[in-house]
């Protein structure tokens, strides 16, 4: 039995004539990393803002960590995170930023675990540098450290991977995985589908303020949807002939060929048709050296669902 960190029912929010959220439902159990994806203007930041208590919904109910949010914007204890980038004060060092925040929450800077959270996000070496000189990735990591300082039970992050180098991304992923394992619910938005796939067990796709999908990534991948696959074989010419004759498989001849290399080709098919194609290639004595979706199942679903929603407007 899961306990819910977030329970939203029929949330709507308008800014003047603009409908930012339209009847959104969302459940996030504790210990889950939940991805929020959608095109620009889909309402992701507005929804994250509501979770952080920065505003109140016009209609609907929202329970955060078991507390129904009232009409005054304020999140309960245990909620941390940021939207539109972390809030840092450039005239303070990384350590001073965290110490000021710890003092604000009534903690002693010496015992608040500042060094620990700095180490977790890999900023120990620059702890005493002013935030003014930090890169976007360093700012993101310091924002995460600031959120960790409050020992959150619900962590809300808007594009946490923005500007991160591979090492920084590894730090962030490691921290989020550990938090989730310890029971913290994480809701994050991202345009990086690889990040969402690497981190999230469930995802909600928003388009024009509405939920167009919400559920496990495995469910999304199992949707009956054609994907493009890049195929690299030991005999490209023969393989291409086999693919051309296979049922349910369409060769994609385009600029993709030059992009994917002369030895590779791209086909579009459902998963069962791809299974048949691989079997046919092996039967023909052609070794399959590489087979991978050109775009991830999540990205493909995202594009299909959001385009469908846009077309339906």
């Amino acid at each position, binding site marked *: 039995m899961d306990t819910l960190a977030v329970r939203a029912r029929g949330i709507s929010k308008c800014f003047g004539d603009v409908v930012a959220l339209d009847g959104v439902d969302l459940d996030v159990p504790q210990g889950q990393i939940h991805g929020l994806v959608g095109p620009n203007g889909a309402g992701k930041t507005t929804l994250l803002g509501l979770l952080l208590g*920065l505003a109140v919904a016009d209609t609907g109910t929202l329970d955060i960590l078991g*507390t129904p949010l009232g009409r005054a*914007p304020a999140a*309960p204890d245990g909620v941390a995170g940021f939207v539109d980038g972390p*809030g840092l004060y450039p005239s303070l060092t990384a350590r001073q930023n965290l110490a000021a925040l710890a*003092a604000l*929450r009534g903690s002693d800077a010496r015992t608040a675990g500042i060094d620990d959270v700095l180490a977790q996000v890999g900023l120990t070496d620059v702890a005493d540098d002013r935030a003014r000189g930090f890169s976007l990735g360093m700012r993101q990591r310091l924002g995460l450290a600031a959120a960790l300082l409050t020992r959150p039970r619900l962590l809300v992050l808007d594009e946490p991977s923005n500007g991160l180098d591979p090492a920084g991304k590894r730090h962030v992923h490691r921290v989020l995985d550990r938090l989730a394992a310890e029971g913290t619910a994480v809701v994050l938005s991202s345009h990086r589908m690889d990040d969402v796939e690497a981190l999230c067990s469930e995802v909600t796709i928003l388009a024009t303020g509405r939920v167009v999908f919400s559920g496990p990534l495995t469910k999304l991948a199992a949707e009956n949807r054609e994907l493009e696959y890049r195929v690299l074989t030991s005999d490209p010419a023969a393989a291409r002939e086999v693919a051309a004759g296979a049922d349910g498989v369409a060769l994609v001849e385009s600029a993709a060929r030059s992009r994917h290399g002369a030895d590779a080709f791209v086909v579009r098919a459902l998963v069962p048709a791809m299974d048949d194609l691989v079997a046919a290639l092996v039967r023909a004595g052609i070794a399959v050296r590489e087979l991978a979706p050109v775009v991830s199942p999540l990205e493909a679903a995202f594009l299909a669902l959001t385009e469908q929603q846009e077309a339906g407007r």
Partner: protein
Amino acid sequence: MTATATPAAGEGNVVTPAAATRPVSVARGYRFEVVKLVSQWRIRLLVLACWIVPGLFVAAVSRQSTLPSDTLFGRWMHATGWAGPLVVLGFSGSWALPLLTSVVAGDVFAAEDRLGTWRHLLVAVRSPRRIFAAKALASLTVILLLVVGLAASGIVGGLLSVGDHALVGLDGHLLAPSDAAGDVLLAWTAALAPTLALAAIGLLGSVSLGRSPMGLLLPALVALAMQLAQMLPLPVALRMALPGYAFISWNGLFTDPGQLRPLLIGVAVSLVWAVVATALAYLLFVRRDFTNAQHDSTARRAVTTGLIPLAVLVAATFAIVAAATPSMGSGITKPKLQRSVATAFAHLYRMQTRQLNRPAVTEAQLRVSAACTKGDDDSATQGAGNDWRCVVTWHLPGVEAAGTAIYQLDVTSDGRYVADGDGPKEVNGYFLVRTPQGDAPNPLWQFDGNVELLSTSQKG
């Protein structure tokens, strides 16, 4: 797919035990804001400058042969250390305090817009009301620190460089060092009221105009507009309805009897402005939508919630002051000016007598009177201008004939004037007299005075 795939409530999920919503206390928020303000280099530099520069300025000018005699009390900087802080106060009321409040209060909210930290702050503090209180208190603290620095530095600089001597008031009477000290401190305290009003206007600008430079400059622009207004021939009631009038009306502390009514009205008006502007800023702030990134400069709301109420406040204050006092004219009349010039001349004549080692006389023996005319028009009896001419007459014990001296007066709209001796030169010409602090110009040669724009009051 347009429906959510999550199970509805009651289908296996249970809600976690409720967490409390506990906003951060104002005290902690205040400390946080003070830390942020003090961490800014420009604030540190301002604090340093306010605590050092006035003292150095007063000390340096007091050692010059030429004094800033066009500034109120500037001509007495050689005579006493208490003149320096008043020169600093005059400059501060015109320039320093409006600019300082702009930099501190005018930026305290806008800085969060510029840095993009509003959401961070809201998540951390969880109460816009407490954020407002903390920011307002923190900016007030820094402004007080700056004002105290200006005053303390000017006083220390004056006392160390010139000494603790008697100060010549605006009606020529001598204030003992202890009285001068008290009045200087009172004058600086009175200047806090319009400073608070400007700070509140700064908060309003900072909240309503966001990162726009207009928000930062609002207190300075308002102060400049008020200075310009004070130079115009406005009715006294309107002059006093402006929140900056207390930057001028502290002059009344340095006459005997003191001109306290304009000072008290000025202070009260400034405090009302401070309260109203702060309340408007608060209302604007707590209604702000922090999820809307475009919300930081809603010009229409700034006008309707910010400027219109302040304009109404000016009109209301004007009406109240006009109803309470007969003050629809310029306040500068021939009888008031004659009385003021005669009083100042009598006091300064006694000072000159002492400095020239002549037999002492009293004001009663001198029986000084003045007859003033304005320009070539004998019927003109009121208003500011540099075309006032006064003939002063006095008597000496045992001397049959009355003495006379002529002064040309430059009277400004706020009631201040400079009297310039126009003969006879043995009385009010330029010559040096010996004083305990060294040679000084003849005190009757040129002197500053002040006409009370309202009717005369008694010093409390």
